[in-house]
């Protein structure tokens, strides 16, 4: 059991989402940085899809009511346990009564608190994620509030945690070569041209070449981009069709919208591109005001990056268990 001691608005319980229900209008939802949730879960000894707390409004404080293994992943800050600075991307054990505090991270947008056993809220349609728009899932279908007390599942037969904890090299460091950033810090986001790309003619090139800024009117549903508007050469009447996170749609104003985790399940605006799935976690960590440029990609490249990410996750899964077992055998 944990108790929320302090929170900003819009911090929610999230897991890897509930794909499979878009055909009845239900967004997949789930963590904006699913890679951080997967790695955090591995470190504490959970299945990769256990539910975590997604924090996007800081500061945030919780109290552990019982001894709990936990990790803070995602953002680049230093979590504090009873005021003592800890490493991010590292599993620790908290004692009953101790307080974990997260302050505004220096650069990134979202931190995840992962608990040994995982957050225990009812599973709805295969997931514990909070569906804010639908008002269901997670903690009573709403963001966390001060005073909320939340159950944590029991972890069956956990391997003991090393005395100094066990950590992972964050993907931004470990996979530096696979996730390039421009020299001036502009995020490079790979995307594959989508159905109406040709309709944008020369403006299509402007879409790829210009640097876009993530507008403050951005949230878990979608990111609105600011820049020189792009317009199709003719307006087409689109019939509503299914969409997925990463789709880049261009509404009449000409400034693109990238659909994110809580993406609407249907759309009708012309779509110019679709961000490759392996780059979505980087968008999930991009704050309003940050700059990005789209890089034209291919299915082959998308596959290659996915495989690099899979190998990284598998390595951490296998090696962390090996390390825990080896240390257990030695003590």
């Amino acid at each position, binding site marked *: 059991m944990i108790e929320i001691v302090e929170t900003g608005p819009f911090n929610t319980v999230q897991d890897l989402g509930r794909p499979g229900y878009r055909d009845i209008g239900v967004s997949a939802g789930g963590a904006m940085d699913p890679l951080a949730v997967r790695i955090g879960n591995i470190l504490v000894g959970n299945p990769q899809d256990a539910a975590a707390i997604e924090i996007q409004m800081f500061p945030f404080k919780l109290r552990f009511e019982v001894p709990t293994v936990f990790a803070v992943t995602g953002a*680049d800050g230093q979590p504090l346990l009873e005021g003592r600075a800890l490493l991010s991307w590292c599993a620790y054990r908290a004692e009953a009564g101790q307080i974990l505090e997260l302050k505004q991270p220096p650069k990134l947008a979202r931190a995840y608190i992962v608990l040994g056993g995982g957050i225990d809220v009812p599973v709805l349609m295969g997931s514990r994620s909070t569906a804010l728009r639908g008002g269901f899932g997670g903690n009573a279908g709403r963001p966390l509030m001060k005073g909320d007390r939340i159950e944590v599942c029991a972890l069956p037969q956990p391997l003991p945690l*090393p*005395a*100094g904890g066990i*950590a*992972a*090299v964050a993907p931004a460091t470990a996979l530096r070569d696979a996730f390039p950033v421009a020299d001036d810090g502009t995020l490079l986001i790979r995307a594959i041209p989508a159905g109406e790309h040709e309709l944008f003619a020369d403006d299509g090139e402007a879409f790829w070449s210009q640097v876009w800024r993530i507008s403050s009117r951005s949230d878990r549903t979608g990111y609105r981009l600011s820049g020189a508007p792009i317009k199709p050469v003719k307006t087409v009447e689109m019939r509503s069709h299914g969409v997925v996170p990463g789709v880049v749609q261009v509404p009449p104003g000409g400034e693109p919208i990238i659909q994110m985790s809580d993406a609407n399940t249907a759309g009708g605006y012309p779509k110019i591109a679709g961000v490759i799935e392996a780059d979505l976690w980087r968008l999930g960590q991009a704050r309003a005001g940050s700059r990005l440029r789209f890089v034209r990609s291919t299915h082959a490249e998308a596959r290659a990056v996915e495989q690099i990410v899979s190998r990284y996750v598998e390595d951490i899964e296998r*090696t962390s268990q090996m*390390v825990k077992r080896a240390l257990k055998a030695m003590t």
Partner: protein
Amino acid sequence: MSTIDFSDPATIAALTEALTAAGVDGLEVSGPVGQLRLVVSKGEGPHIRLTGGIGANQAKAVTVKAPIAGCFCAIHPSVSEETETLPRRVSDKDVVGFIRIGSVLLPVPAGRSGLLARRLAEPGALVGFGDPLFEIEPQP
């Protein structure tokens, strides 16, 4: 003060024989620049391992040893600009370095409070279990 030359095979052989005769399972000698570990395993003869050289015995200093084999990192891999400052005061729970195995990092806590005086392994070096990484001088 004279020191025993642990790099001399004859010395080690003699020591091993003495240990075996005494029924002792093993011996470990640590110094600021190296470590010697002798393990007598049944039936297979002694296993001898020598890391670095062995210098003068500094009775008061304590070594922080590698808790597992891997790549030694003196600073966190995600930190690029920060440089390590030695000597510095540390408390027992402070993380003084890391062992990296693939993308997994095992933080190495100081284990005791004191003055982190010397680093005994090269950053990036492969270290074995028990290899000395740091020397801590206990302080009152």
